């Protein structure tokens, strides 16, 4: 409340600038702070640990982003280190890695949009057409499982199945295609297909839940009316089922595009080998290499900040786009 006013500024009459008026009457705005604190002391006490968590582990790191504009030297600390302006960003944009990182990140994002994003929609629609309850449930139970397994396990399974020495799938492919044995896990050519395969295996089943919920909430009267009007199964699907999940698809699309720059650190990191680094390196893993492995904290932070800002722009941008297209959007 202690906003400083210029001496000659006209103080407006007691009209609330923000917030609805009734709240002001009921709420504690006009009471002194200490009385609120006293009155709600137990609630504030309960709030405190969580608030401390957010300040320490979420907002201190945001302050720590300032080192992206400094030459951070650990023993000088955040405030003691020299400001260098946009030097690190310049180094990033003009450096040899930027193009490769951008292309790798974008290709993975594109593959995600084309293959991974539609998969749960298709499977949910298929499940929706399945009218035998028991079978539907069983299929659902089985395809949800991989979601709960860690990326380490997924990477290990990939290794055990595709390993050149004893991998089952590698063996099959060798029998079918013939020729030289291929080390699928290590080689650059197979990095992206394997990443997409892993994503499909791990996330498709789980991803159906949200669409199935949307499908379950469709008013059955719509279908009955359509049938009375002589709509076949295909037309019912096209004119009722599909439109009914369209808002969900839009929301999920917004969320996906907000995450386009997040290539999934754990997954990529676990699948990176010395042979495939040229195609595997993305912003997330690069930050780890540069920051943790090489100790260039400032440069790594700048790379991370660049990625984060793009992420924010993407999520707000796609939300805005969805609204322009007449959809409800996220916020």
């Amino acid at each position: 409340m202690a906003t400083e006013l210029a001496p000659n500024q006209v103080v407006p009459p007691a009209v609330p600038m923000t917030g609805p008026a009734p709240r002001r009457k009921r709420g504690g705005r006009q009471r002194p702070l200490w009385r609120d604190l006293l009155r709600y002391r137990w609630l504030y006490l309960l709030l405190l640990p969580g608030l401390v968590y957010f300040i320490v582990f979420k907002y201190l790191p945001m302050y720590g982003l300032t080192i992206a504009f400094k030459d951070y030297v650990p023993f000088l600390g955040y405030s003691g280190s020299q400001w260098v302006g946009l030097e690190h960003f310049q180094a990033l944009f003009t450096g040899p890695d930027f193009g490769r990182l951008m292309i790798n990140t974008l290709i993975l994002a594109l593959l995600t949009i084309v293959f991974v994003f539609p998969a749960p929609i298709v499977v949910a629609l298929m499940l929706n057409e399945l009218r035998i309850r028991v079978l539907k449930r069983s299929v659902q139970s089985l395809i949800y499982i991989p979601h709960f397994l860690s990326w380490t396990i997924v990477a290990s399974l990939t290794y055990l199945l595709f390993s050149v020495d004893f991998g089952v799938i590698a063996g099959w492919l060798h029998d079918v295609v013939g020729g030289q044995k291929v080390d699928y896990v290590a080689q650059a050519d197979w990095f992206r297909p394997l990443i997409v395969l892993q994503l499909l295996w791990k996330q498709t089943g789980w991803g159906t839940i949200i669409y199935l919920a949307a499908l379950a909430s469709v008013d059955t009267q719509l279908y009955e009316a359509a049938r009375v009007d002589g709509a076949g199964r295909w037309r019912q699907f096209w004119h009722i089922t599909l439109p009914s999940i369209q808002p969900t698809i839009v929301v999920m699309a917004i969320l996906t595009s907000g995450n386009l720059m997040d290539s999934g650190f754990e997954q990529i990191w676990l699948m990176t080998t010395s042979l495939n680094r040229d195609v595997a390196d993305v912003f997330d893993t690069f930050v780890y290499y540069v920051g943790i492995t090489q100790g260039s904290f400032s440069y790594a932070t700048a790379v991370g900040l660049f990625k984060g800002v793009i992420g924010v722009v993407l999520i707000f941008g796609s939300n805005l786009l969805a609204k322009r297209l007449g959809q409800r959007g996220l916020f």
Partner: protein
Amino acid sequence: MARSRSVRYFDSPGSRAFDALNLLLLIGLAVVTVLPLLYVVAGSFATESEISSRPFFLWPEKFVTDTYKYIFSTDTFVRALLTTIAVTAVGTVVQLFLTLTMAYPLAKRQLPGRALVLNLVLFTLVFSGGMIPTYLVVRDLGLLDSYWALILPLAINPFYLIVVKSFFQELPEALEEAARIDGCNELNVFLRIVLPLSKPIIATFSLFYAVAIWNDYMSPLLYIDDSRKWTLQMIVRQLTAANADSANVLQQLETVSFPEQGLKFAVVVVATLPILLFYPFLQKHFAKGVMIGSVKE
């Protein structure tokens, strides 16, 4: 009335063919999803020679438990398993405590400052300091190589917090009011009225957090240097990932002869088993959680 009509509909040959194909594809999908897991379980009970000679099997020719005997005889593996169990147990309690205590006041609309805190929480969903600044905070707190680094930096998941908060908001206000009139302060209302009513959601989120900690690979990778403090996920990766530095790990496993391939299968099985054991509960609660989470305030 529309029943008979609909039945006739689905009975048309084209429709039946579609149903059959649809069913076939979905069963195929389910099989493809579980087959790798079944193979790994089978492989973990097979002999070394069977793994390398037989292309694919779901039941080993010769059923052996050598691999399990072996991994449980090594200090490295047993230590990692116990560490992971302990960190998961303590971590779940700590994270649940922080989430519940913060969610309750945030559910009270009349609390001054609530909107501000809520916005602080929501903002972290869109933007974060990122890997390096968080790492530096953890380092400056002296948490590197401490088990707390596996628990505290991820202590509150903002999504879960919002869901729990919404749940608290839906609780009947009358009960709390009655307790207040009986002279309970807010703390007692929370402990004696609200928490007992929240058992289902507490169960749900214990599972949420436990699975997240158990599966976490990034935190130990970032914060734990000392290999004696490694968790199971680190061991799994060291042994089986594509770029595994297995020679080094195997050396630590202090051994001369060991089931080299079978070992990898067994380690994956042990690291997955708790998740699969809890899976029936997980599926039930998680699916519900996703749905609650998708409802906007």
